[in-house]
């Protein structure tokens, strides 16, 4: 099993952000996290990526517990944080080299990995331009390249297409589909058509809990459309 998540819980102050999330993921699956803002999607992803420690529960990547053996687990994960924070003064080339070397790659291996990841993420000509001068779409691709550097089996992408124009979104979706052929992917998104277009499975999260875990087709069958499913299954802040 690529990823096994059991009973994850996380509390911030008085708010129970994640309240017992469990699911598993195999190679070849592209799972879409759906849910209103504040539902716990990002917190769940952060716990799987080893940025936050769960209060309770476990996330195991190839049976390696992220909280117990954080670094060994993180070697097997590629993570794109929400908003893809980067170092603006660096160029994609120096930035990706930095990420590769911080991951412990030798300079030669890093050069090689950066070249490959830049190609996969189609960075093209922008590789030597300061990141702060790049468009949102290209910045997202730099973040994606950083997540792909070490050729991880598990990719966690937090809103990979958020804020992109339709052409950029199309390009990133193609990439996600291609990556999903021999890896496991978790993406979070607010775009329901995206789930329909690229995901093999949709996990709907509301108030820190999973309220549905099905194929997009099954959700549509049951509720008529993904939008109806989303509205019926989640309450979010607006409706509470």
């Amino acid at each position, binding site marked *: 099993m690529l990823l096994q998540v059991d009973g994850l819980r996380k509390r911030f102050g008085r708010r129970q952000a994640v309240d017992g999330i469990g699911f598993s993921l195999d190679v070849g699956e592209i799972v879409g996290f759906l849910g209103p803002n504040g539902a716990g999607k990002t917190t769940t992803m952060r716990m799987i990526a*080893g940025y936050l420690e769960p209060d309770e529960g476990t996330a195991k990547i190839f049976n390696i517990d992220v909280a117990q053996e954080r670094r060994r687990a993180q070697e097997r994960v590629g993570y794109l944080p929400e908003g893809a924070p980067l170092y603006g003064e660096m160029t994609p080339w120096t930035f990706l080299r930095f990420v590769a070397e911080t991951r412990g790659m*030798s300079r030669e291996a890093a050069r090689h990995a950066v070249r490959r990841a830049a190609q996969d993420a189609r960075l093209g000509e922008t590789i030597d331009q300061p990141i702060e001068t790049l468009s949102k779409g290209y910045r997202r691709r730099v973040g994606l390249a950083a997540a792909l550097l070490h050729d991880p089996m598990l990719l966690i992408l937090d809103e990979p297409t958020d804020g992109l124009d339709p052409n950029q979104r199309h390009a990133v979706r193609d990439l996600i589909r291609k990556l999903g052929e021999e890896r496991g992917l978790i993406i979070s998104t607010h775009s329901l058509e995206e789930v329909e277009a690229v995901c093999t499975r949709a996990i709907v999260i509301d108030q820190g809990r999973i309220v549905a875990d099905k194929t997009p087709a099954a959700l549509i069958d049951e509720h008529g459309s993904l939008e109806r499913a989303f509205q019926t299954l989640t309450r979010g802040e607006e409706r509470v």
Partner: protein
Amino acid sequence: MKKRPGLASMTAVYRRELLSYVTTPTAYVFIAVFLFAIGLFTFQVGGFFEARRADLTSFFSFHPWIFMVFLPAVAMRLWAEETRSGAIELLMTLPAPTWSLVLGKYLAAWTIAAVALVLTFPLWITVNFLGSPDNAAIFTAYLSSLLMAGAYIAIGTVMSALTAAQVIAFVLSVLVSFLLTALGLPLVLDFFSGFIGGAGAEAVARFSILHHFDAAQRGVVEFRSIFYFASLIALCLGFTALAVDARRGG
């Protein structure tokens, strides 16, 4: 050659941090302001020429006071900026030990301080031109000053790890640095001896940066001063690592 993973991460973080200092105007401004300030104090306040002595006492004696303001400014962005920009999330999801991140960043800031110190060499040339100073003593004083700079940067580093606001990190580090430095001032010591007696005040002074830099600036190497600065640095960096790791707890 395959380096140990922690060392490779540390080197990568060190290089990135240094690159960020030199690709933004930060390092240049800091160094220029430092050189200007140290020159001003040495000549105007310290009376370098009036003393008519071929040594650098008037130069070194101002180091604690200038470092106290200058080095928190160098260190304030190290962690605060990562938190503000969100890049910390990227950094902490890389399989690197926390100490390697802390040390890499710290050493980069220390390097900037070292460069600033090295660039004061015209003063050293000047005293050698004017007379025949004890160059071994000057060299020792430079090394002590570098070690002391390391302590001020370590204080700045821990403050930077505690907040996302660079300004707050700066103000807190100046405050802590000032307290640790001024504990050795006669003015402060007199104040203390009123409460806890002369021996008590003496004990307090032992914890001050000024006390430990005092002998060093005359070129005297004291093991306990080296030990003092080294422990101060280790303590601050240890707290930095704890503060960084504590974020995983949310």
